């Protein structure tokens, strides 16, 4: 719990660009909603590490949204089933079904399809929403949070100070 609080403070208070934090959170939504070792998630892990996307935001987001994803599985099933059984998409799905890569992706599973499409559809709106939230936090909330006793106590903690000393290691902020 303390670690999560430290991470959120670290993420939000760092000098990282809001877009990098938002991207990390948006990618985390897809990873949290869909099965962890799907083909598309391996691509996302690569993107997160290769591009300057905030890793802490991604990890924290993955953890936070995981529960939401599990709760939404029945909804994802219905969305996926509707998409996969749409007659006008049948030719596309049939082509995918006959391609090994898409079978590895398990796209024809209703939950995989529903959760992936939901994650992708939410990606852009969430990106702008997270961006604005980070900016708002930095402008209006940051100073108050710094004065909270609990935050001061956490910042005085040895662990937090060590964590701070690791900041900017290899640009993995």
């Amino acid at each position, binding site marked *: 719990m303390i670690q999560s609080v430290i991470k959120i403070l670290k993420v939000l208070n760092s000098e990282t660009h809001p877009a990098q934090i938002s991207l990390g959170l948006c990618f985390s939504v897809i990873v949290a909603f869909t099965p962890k070792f799907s083909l598309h998630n391996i691509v996302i*892990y690569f993107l997160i590490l290769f591009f300057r996307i905030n890793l802490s935001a991604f990890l924290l987001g993955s953890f936070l949204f995981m529960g939401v994803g599990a709760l939404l599985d029945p909804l994802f099933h219905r969305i996926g*089933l509707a998409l996969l059984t749409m007659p006008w998409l*049948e030719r596309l799905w049939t082509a995918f079904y006959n391609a090994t890569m898409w079978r*590895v992706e*398990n796209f024809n*599973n*209703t939950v995989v399809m529903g959760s992936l499409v939901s994650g992708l559809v939410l990606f852009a709106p969430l990106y702008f929403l997270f961006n604005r939230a980070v900016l708002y936090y930095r402008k209006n909330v940051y100073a108050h949070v710094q004065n909270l006793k609990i935050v001061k106590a956490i910042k005085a903690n040895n662990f937090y100070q060590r964590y701070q000393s690791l900041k900017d290691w290899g640009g*993995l902020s």
Partner: protein
Amino acid sequence: MTGQADKERGGAGARKRSKVVRWQGLLIFVVLGALVAGLWLLFVDRYAERAIESAGTSIVGAKVELDQADVSLSPLGLTLVGLKVTNPDAPMTNAFEAGRIAFRMDGPNALRRKIIIEEMSVEDVRLNTPRKTSGAVASTGKTPLEQLAELPSFVIPNVQEAFEKEKADLRSLKLVAGAAADAETARTRWEEKLRELEAAADIEKYKKRYAEFKAKTGKVTVGNLIGGSADLIALQKAVKADIQTVTEAKKLFTADFSALQKVAADAPATIRDDTRRIIDKYSLTPAGLTNISRMLFGPKIASSVRSALQWNERLTPFIERVKEKVNGKDVVKPVRAEGRNVRFREDRPLPDFLARLAKVSISLPQGSFAGRVENMTSDPDILGQPLKFAFSAEKLKGLRSASLEGTFDRVDPAARKDVLNLRLRGYEARDVKLVASKSLPVDLAEGLADLDVSASLEKGSLTARITAGVRSARLLVGKGEERQGLAGRVDGAIRSALAGVTSLSLTAEITGTTEDFELKVRSDLDEVLKSAVGGLVRDQLAGFEGDIQKAIAGEVDGPLGKLGAGLKGLEAVGLDLDTLNKKLADLLKK
């Protein structure tokens, strides 16, 4: 100078540092990927073991355990050691145990989530092995054949036992109780109807109208005569219409009343029918003692058939996956994942699981059986071929030859057909418990048995025939609990008769549906026992029949009384209808 050069190099380095890409991330991705792959390789065996145990347990409905799983990547394959499947009906027994199962899979198809196995070897299969739990081992110590040959308790039931067992199926009781309830409902309904009719055909009102008409026509004028005759005709029409309504109501009433009366009148005959049915089922009828075989062998055969049908049903998920249709697409539940998998047309259709050939070796106490199973698949409709199996063995210990073969044809789910043929020859039976009765325990001390079973289950319709023959038989009739009176004398006669039996044959025919099948059993023991106990049975039967009939009549008595009361009530309603009709008819006479 040097400081200036450093500054320039630093500046160039800063310029080169991309704001978008972090190259070291690529290295970390590769390292993490390698780490995950390493961990997967390290734990994949354990993961496969757990996955098989968990999926198997959920499918079978009882514990499935595996000692070890070994996944190989090149060539892609899996070896399972020590697979144990618990019998859900007997949790202290493993229904199936396999020492080793090994197969190779088609790699490219595995990537497409299709398990295609050209040849599978299943070694050291054992059936019905005891399980160890908390140090206690429950073992029946019987081979499957001995279990098949085990027979039910041979006890001639007493009246109370037979009656209690059959009470729920008494046709006479159902008919009379139903009719009593109907009579009560009919009485209420007809009383209501009578009130309605009486209100509609208001006799006093008609009389008043008639009196008014008479008063009007007292003075003989043309106008009075014309107007009066029109009124009279209208009155007559109204009365006639009411008479018609009442007459039709009476017809319907009579139909209701007669039907209920018939039930009451037929009650003694239906009681006799029930009595006859129970006697036929439970007693040794003098007409050839035909029911002895059914009494002796019937329950055990029926229980074996039910058990076989249960296993057939349990195997169904393995040989025929349930598919839903959504918007014309096949949708299947994946074994170990959330949601459903939607299937589309494939260029080269293949089932999700297919083992083209499994070579199986089974170890039984009599020796080893070898066999093969072809076309094991969860999607026979896609494969287009039925599952076939064949096992055989010769010159086993105490068994000259055995063969088992069959097919599970689920290619067209609407026309599913399963066929099984079992043939045992020269089974040296020893100490097989034939009848586990307290009063008359019968064992087959020794004998040479042949058994043929042929069964087919087509579109839910079951047909099976079992024939068994035992020669060089020596039956041991134990000294059980002494019974008094006639039952004791029958026991004695049967004991003497069976002691002389050296051969016996049995034929059982099963027809019907999986839920409700009829069993006919014939045996040459019938003749032996007929001559031995026929006389005694005739005496017994007379008493048995009378007592059963009394018991049924006693049970039916209450509802029959209610039916009588209901009929009396209805009879009164009938009389009231007649009275109403008569009153209306009298009006017309005036």
